[in-house]
Every structure is written in C-alpha cells, then in structure tokens.
C-alpha cells in the first residue's frame, strides 16, 4: 500500500483557503479526504452530498469531509480507518496555524507530505504583514510554504502585483509563487498527480495553458550531478511550481528513481514499481513565462546520450 499524499492548505483569514478547498472538492480527480476547521464554511451543493454522519460528510464523487473538532490526531485516525483508504488527504489549517506544524503530521507511517500551500491575499498581504497582532503570524506562515497561492491577482494593478511578488520571494525564499483568481488553481499545480505515468515522448515539449505550462524532457541515464545542478538552479526561481520524474542514474542504472520537487523541497526516492522504465523523464510545471525558450534542456539537454 503506497503512502497517502498530504496537502496542507494554510493562510490567514480571508485569503481564500475555503474557496480553494471548495474548488478542489468540486473538481476532484481522486478520492480525497478533506479535514476542515469549519464545517459550516464548506459549501457543497446539496446534490453532491451522499451522506452526513456527525463529524463526516460523504460526497457522491468519493470525497469525504471530516471535521477537526476533536483535533488533528483524532481526525487522522478517523480518515485512515476508512475503507477504501482515501487517495489524498487535504488539511485546511486554521487562519493562524503555522502550516509547518500541520505538515509535521504528514511524516508518519502511511502518509507522506506532498506540499504545504499558503494562500495569500494579493490585496491585503503587505498591510497584514505589519499588523500589530498578526503580522508575525502571517510572515511565519509564508516562510513555511512550498507553494504560495497568490490569490485575487485580478484585484490589484500590475505594478502592485510585481512588487508584492518580489516581496513574497524575500519572505518565502523556498516557495514558488502561483497566481490565482477566485481560489481556482489547476490540480496539476496543487497536487503531484501521476504525471510520470503518461506516455513517453522522446522530445522536449511545452503544453501552454492559461495559468501554467508543462515542460517535459526525456532522455537516457542522467548523472546525479545533473539533477543536483538543476535543483540548485531552480532554487533561484519562484516560478517553477513542481518538478517530477522517473530517472535512471548512471551510478545505479538498475534502480530507477522518482524525482519530486515542490517549491524548493525535493527528493529522490526508489521507484516502487514492477515495470522499470529505461528512459529518464522529467516534467516541470511552471508559470506561463518560465523556463523559456529551452525548458529543462538548459540543464538536462547535454546529458542526453543519443
């Protein structure tokens, strides 16, 4: 049984966490269990609800909402006892919680941390960060994020937006910044969906989208240093949301590895799969203008042995 990926959604009051959770619930591609602070704020169309039972609401699309009334530990025990087990866990942190302290729960048997997201209100974040009571809390939240979801970008001028993004990069040097309106962000950005299982093309490609772009690179064995160089280079950027792949390394050619990166947190772990691909494939999900024009070829291109 593979570990259940956990996504933490943090951010101060009014940033749009709940809107985002509602959006993700409506567009769920997996059977998600969603742990929420405030049941009342989850506004799901009644026809989507298949069952209500005290602290849980079951949806027709297979998702379950579970209240955090008895605390996170108890809620986790509840959802992990579900049969079948959920395919993903989404935890909505309270408006003042440090997402890092919630994310700590994901480092437990049966779970793994996918990403800690912090939703940011583009209009109010700068003022909020100097608030007498909550300034320090808000700034601390930013620093815990893998991905900052910069929400309500449609409500601010372009120069305010770029100023805010530059400021956010300083507050959260480890995070990538994803722009959003109305809390709507593509699942491929929010979640580490199974991109590596898609058909393999032996070419670089880009898939242009409104809000993000996918770059993929396919080749033969890679040196470990190629991966490390790529990771270091991306540390300088805040517009590469995710990198994911299955790679074969020259120092261990028989053991394909899974590469995962969100924000600037990354890992290389052994691929647990029967079929062992011989090619390496790396996919990056970025902001629309990032990594142009050569995508991942800039770092991995020369590694391709043809």
């Amino acid at each position, binding site marked *: 049984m593979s570990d259940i990926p956990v996504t933490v959604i943090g951010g*101060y*009051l009014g940033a749009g966490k709940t809107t985002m959770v509602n959006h993700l619930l409506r567009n769920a591609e997996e059977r998600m269990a969603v742990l*929420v*602070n*405030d*049941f*009342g704020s989850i506004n799901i169309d009644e026809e989507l609800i298949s069952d209500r039972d*005290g602290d849980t609401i079951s949806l027709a699309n297979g998702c379950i909402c579970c*209240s*955090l*009334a*008895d*605390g*996170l*530990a*108890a809620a*986790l*025990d509840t959802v992990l006892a579900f049969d079948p087990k959920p395919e993903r866990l989404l935890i909505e942190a*309270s*408006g*003042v919680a*440090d997402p*890092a*302290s*919630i994310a*700590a*729960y994901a*480092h*437990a*048997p049966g779970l793994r941390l996918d990403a800690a997201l912090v939703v940011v209100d583009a209009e109010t974040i700068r003022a909020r960060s100097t608030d007498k*009571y*909550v300034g*320090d*809390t808000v700034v*601390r939240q930013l620093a815990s994020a893998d991905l900052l979801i910069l929400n309500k970008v449609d409500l601010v001028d372009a120069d305010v937006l770029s100023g805010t993004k530059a400021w956010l990069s300083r507050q959260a040097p480890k995070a990538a910044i994803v722009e959003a309106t109305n809390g709507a962000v593509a699942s491929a950005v929010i979640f580490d969906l199974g991109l590596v299982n898609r058909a393999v093309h032996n070419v670089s490609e880009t898939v242009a989208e409104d809000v993000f772009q996918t770059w993929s690179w396919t080749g033969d064995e890679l040196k470990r240093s190629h991966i490390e160089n790529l990771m270091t280079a991306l540390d300088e950027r805040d517009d590469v949301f995710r990198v994911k792949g299955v790679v074969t390394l020259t120092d261990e050619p028989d053991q394909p590895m899974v590469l995962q990166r969100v924000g600037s947190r990354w890992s290389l772990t052994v691929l647990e799969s029967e079929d062992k691909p011989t090619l390496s494939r790396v996919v990056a999900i970025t902001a629309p203008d990032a990594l142009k024009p050569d995508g991942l070829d800039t770092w991995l291109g020369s590694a391709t042995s043809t």
Partner: protein
Amino acid sequence: MSEAVETTIYPARTIHTMNRAHPSAEAIAVRGTRILGIGSVDELSTWAERLGPYTVDESFADKVLFPGFIEAHCHVMTGGMWQFPYVGFFDRRGVDGRLWTGCKNIAAVVERLSEVEQQIDDPEETLIAWGLDPIYFDGEERLLAHHLDEVSATRPMFVYHASGHLATVNSALMAKEGITRQAATPGVARYESGEPNGEFQEPAAMRLAGDAFTTFRQTIASAEAKWNYGFEARNAGNTTVADLGTSNVADEEKLTEWRSVVNDPDFPCRVMVAGASGVAGTVDPTSLAELVLELQATESEKLRFGVIKIVIDGSIQGFTARISWPHYFNAPEGHPGNGLWLIPPDQVADLVSVYHQAGLTVHCHCNGDEAAEVFIDAVEEAHRRHPRVDTRHTVQHCQLTTPPQYRRMATMGMCANIFSNHMFYWGDQHRELTVGPERAEQMDACGTAEAAGVSFSIHCDAPVTPMGPLHVAWCAVNRLTASGRVLGEQERISVDTALRAITTEAAYQLKLDHDIGSLEAGKLADLTVLDDDPYEVDPATLKDIGVWGTVVGGRKHPAAKSNA
C-alpha cells in the same frame, strides 16, 4: 412529595458562611439537598421540629465548615491521568488518596517505573506514565529512551510530560511502531548518532507512538476519567468544578456519559461543563450557542451548562502566550519572538458576539496581555453590537493582565479567573526565563484585580497543576515560588479575599451564586469540611490544612484515606 425528607443539624467548631450578613454560625441545618438555615442548634431545632423528624449529627462537631469550594477552571482529563502511574516532580495525591512522592531526578523516575513494570502481568501491555517534569531537574537532565530501556527492553513504554508537549518512549515502543533513524517527522529528537532518542516533541511526533498515544488520549476522556475527576475534587475539598472547554458538547455520546456519571448520587461533585468553541473548529458558533442554551434549559442540579470557552493564545512557560512588547525575556534559541494565536484575533469579536447575543457567558483563555487585550476589545465590540447587562464574561488565566485592562474589565462587569498556582510552580522560571523580574512580579495580579473592583476567582487548571483550593488560595496570599522567593509582594491578597475567590466569587463567575458559594437558607447544601480554620492558622500554612471531605447537596463525601 412521597419521599420522606428529613432535616439534619450539623453543629461545628465554626461555620464560615461567606455571607456578609451572617459571617459565622455554630450550626447548619440541611433539609434534602438544600440549606434550611444557619444559626445556633437551638434556633435550628425549633424550626426543624416544626417540619417533622430531625437529627443532630455531631460528626462535624470539631470541624470547620465552609461553603463548598469551587474550582472554576480545570479539566476532566485530570481524572483520567490517575489511570496511569505518576512520575512528576512534586508530590501529588492520587484519587484513591495514595501519596505519590515526586520524582526529583531521572533515577527516581526509572525506579518508579521499574516498580510499576514489575506489577504488570501481560508482557505485551504498554506501560503509560504521566506528569514527567524535567524542567525542574538539575543540569537539564532529559529522560531518554536508554533510561527507559533500563526499565524494560521488551515492554513498550510511553511517558507523557507535564507540559503536554512532549512524550518519551523506549526502544521497544519504537521497534513496535517501526520508528527508526529514517523517521522524518519534525519533533523526533535524536542522539548524536542520528538514532531517535525516544523524545517525541509536539503532537505530530507523539502520534508516532501509535496505540500508546491513542490509548492515552481515549483513557483521559473516558467515563472512568469523569468519576476520578469527581473524586479528585472531593479529596481536595471542591464541591463544584468547571470543566473548562475540554468537552465537545455536541458529541451526544460524551454528553450521555456526563449525565449518567455526574447525576449518579455517588458522584461527589457538581460540574459546569463549558462548551468548547473555536479551539480546532468544533461546531459553528451559532449552533453551539443554541445547543448550550438547550442544555442549560434541561440541566440538573449537579450538571450545569451556560458557559462557553474560547482559547486564543498559548502558555507562558511554553513561550506561546501572546505578550506585548518587549515580549519574552530570555526565550530559547530559534524562538520567533512572540507566541501563537490559536484563533485569528480579528475573528474574536464575531465569535464573542454570537454567544454574547445568545445570553451566554464567554470564558476566554488569555495567558498573555496581548490576548487579554483582544478579548476585552471583543467584549466591548459585542456590547456595542448587542447592548446587554450582567454578562460576567471572564478572562481566564489572566496571567499578565495589566492594570488598565483590569479597569476596562471592571467598567464592563467582566470577571477574572487568575492562575495563582503559577506563582509556586513556575514563578522562578517566569523571573529567569519567560517574562523577566519586573513582569513576573506583576503576574497573576490578584491585588490589582481587587483594587480595580473586578470580581475574581483563582484556579489550578488541573491537570496542569494539582487540584487544591487551599493551595490556590495559599499561592495568592503568599506568592512564594518553588525556590522560596516572594514574587511581587504588592499583589498579595488577604486570606479572606482568597477564600471569597474560591467561594462567592467563583460562584458569581459561573452564574451559580443563587445556588452555591455561600451558606444561607435556601441555597444548596454544599460544604467543605476542614480540620482547621484558615482564618486562624498562620497564612503560610494555609495549604496544609487537612480536608475531611465534602457535603454535596446534603450528602457526605469523605475524602479518600491517605497512606501518608
């Protein structure tokens, strides 16, 4: 009306009624669950006779009687703790009256656990213990896995710390739960070698202890925990306790359990069960308000409702309370500067307004002064939206509440419940580490509250510190730290004020003062029975006065006999 109600007259050495009109009396007459009157045996006999048969019970003839003491801030899990052996630093008396001597160092902890271990037959059973308090150990000694491995290399062990933020486990438990050096959970502390050292910091890491942590959490919320809660209260001399926001009152099962336990005639205490709001969400405020009003309308004499608990900051000794500038005095490396909010401060006024408008009383946990400021602002805003009289909204803990804040509280008729026990248990740490000498001397400022005209109670917050109304009073009167230092002499209060704080004022704060808090005709017959008179002993020995037990609703509940 069919049941024969008899009158019992109890003559006593002294009865302190806490009723200003009749401060003392030689006897009290009890009829059914209520007080028929106080006065002389002659006066009371004349009246009793008119009503039918009566008896004169001499068992309290050499005792000193008070209105039953009230602990207005503690938690039901204090009772649950006693299902596990105690390894804390200070002596503590179990619900069965057993005196558990304090474990003053690691060796004592290991010795205590070894004794317990040998008495468990099932080799698979996990040994769970509680109360570990390494903050008082010399030289920053920490209990780690290798210490516990001396106790047993095969039996899983889980030791819960007094702070509630840590647990120490042994190697057998880590082996059982598959915790290795690969464990990535933040809070898994390590030896220099990189192996986990058995110390799990914060709940996310504690959860790795698997069944042990689950068993612990469930046990401290069990029906037996509720029974022990009552026994612990009785042994300490409390006849009413407020379970302040531990219970999810929307949980039907737990509610039924509360009813069947507390309404059992053998259960020796009244309980005010507060509805917990907004700690980790719970039900939405409007529904909670409706529910609590409904519960209040159908409450019994023993099980009460009507109070809402909100928690907005952390603890001072944990460096998580919200304290105004210049914040913490000597915080540990890496501390972010100020403490944590548990709910967004901008939400507090909306939250308070819901309960305020519903006519309920809001009790808000505010350890730091910044937290108190937010709550007081919220109460003011609630009054602006929904003018209302006699709310008795209460600042709980009130540890750094300032003179201007107390004066604002007074203008709005707010109450304070001051955590006086902190003086003794953490006073030295507050002076050296958390807030520094100046603020430490102004902490838990009962004197300032009294001067500002704020009605206040004092509390223990059990299980954080042991249940003990006379200890709580002793702290407020003497302000002595564990090392023997007087901390803030100016904030001391008189014995009389302290005794009012645990009787009339606590009753007022819980809006139960029509029924309890003083001894007067018509009120419930709740008595605390003492071996000595707090007004006569040296105030320095207030905490040492023997407690015979209590009377709750006319029924005697002797304290458990002690072994020391």
